[in-house]
């Protein structure tokens, strides 16, 4: 069976890869491109650890076939900070101790970034519902929600 050739932009880099029809974007990110910041917690779209932004939409990369994304723009956790500075969300997560084990953190940061791009002034409830697809087992979410709200406030000012 021949492989499928795909061109994508990942974190603004042009990337080419060959994939099998059944490979997911998550498989390619991790196993081919070694962008292991995107995590696999379930493989069935139930935990959000593999969240990426695909053509401006927040998606679970475990539920997107690698063959589907020809010509797309993908954004992962590895592209969140620039060379000199962390993203405000990253800073606030550190400041608020919004992570314990940190395995869910990349997915939650990506999801929170997608939220703040859509809604710069979300309420606590909006943040909670937006992030409902990102499971965290360590924190009880409290500090995560605070960090997102605080980052939103800082980004607005």
């Amino acid at each position, binding site marked *: 069976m021949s492989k499928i050739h795909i061109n994508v932009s990942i974190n603004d880099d042009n990337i080419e890869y060959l994939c099998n029809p059944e490979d997911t974007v998550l498989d390619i990110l991790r196993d081919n491109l070694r962008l292991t910041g995107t995590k696999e917690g379930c493989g069935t779209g139930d935990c959000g650890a593999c969240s990426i932004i695909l053509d401006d939409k*927040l998606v679970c990369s475990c539920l997107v076939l690698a063959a589907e994304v020809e010509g797309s723009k993908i954004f992962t956790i590895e592209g969140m900070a620039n060379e000199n500075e962390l993203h405000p969300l990253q800073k606030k997560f550190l400041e608020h101790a919004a992570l314990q084990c940190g395995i869910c953190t990349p997915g939650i940061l990506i999801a929170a970034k997608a939220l703040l791009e859509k809604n710069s002034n979300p309420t606590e409830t909006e943040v909670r519902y937006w992030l409902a*697809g990102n499971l965290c087992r360590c924190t009880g979410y409290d500090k995560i929600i605070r960090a997102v709200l605080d980052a939103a406030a800082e980004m607005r000012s």
Partner: protein
Amino acid sequence: MRYVKPNSEKEATSILFAERGISKILAGGTDILVQIKSGVIKPDLILDIKNIPGIKSIIKKNEGYEIGAAVSGLEFNNDPELKKFAPGIAEAFDLIGSTQIQGRCTMVGNLCNASPAADTVPALISSNCIAKIIGPSGVRECHINEIPVGPGKISLKKGEFIKSIFIPARPDFSADSYIRFTPRSEMDIAIVSAAVFITIDKDKICKDAKVSLGAVAPTVVTVKNAEELLVGSKLDVNVLSKMAAECSSSCQPIDDKRGTIEFRSHVAGVLAKRAALLAYKRAGEKSE
């Protein structure tokens, strides 16, 4: 497994028709990728319809809306006019999965997955929606309730796929609603659900009603007796409690890991009542 991404309806149907093994249509993939991963399905062909012209469009047509098969929940709910036009369908669509799933999931996918618990199906049925089906012998249309025939089973024939769903024009002073019950506030599957479409007159008397229940039988249950009770009323407490009882007794649910017969039957009535009140309120706001 092969992956193909045809560029036209015709190409799609001919590939589907020619395929000897199991073929699956890919739009959002939020169901089929899970099923492939868990080994529930082993398709020989994945046909990605997203390159077919018009498949991602939302088109206003004959006072209604035609929703392309690859329109995601996010895109639907990002359209304020559409959301206002069909709030019940919008809330049903919005309840599928997480924000991440919303970026990908489609109504047609939800429909063709044929889960008794599908969120949009009761809402589409209550709103009398119509599916446009492309097949080897051309285009045909059919009502939503004719598509799922049992859990995981649909009535589409070989070579066919659904291209869009049409939400028809609504009479004046009408509105829909959808309410489901899940143990968690998000990231869950409906244990039971209810969708109601109500049309009222100027005196706020219900002229027409459609009540559909999800996850209480192999396919969506439309409760004629409940609808008849609503018609001619102002949805007072008596009518609502009778209607709830009708809904509860129309259910043929099962006991499973998500809920019990007792729970589903009882809560079907509760949700139908709440959904009816919500639709009635929305319709009333239009009459003011």
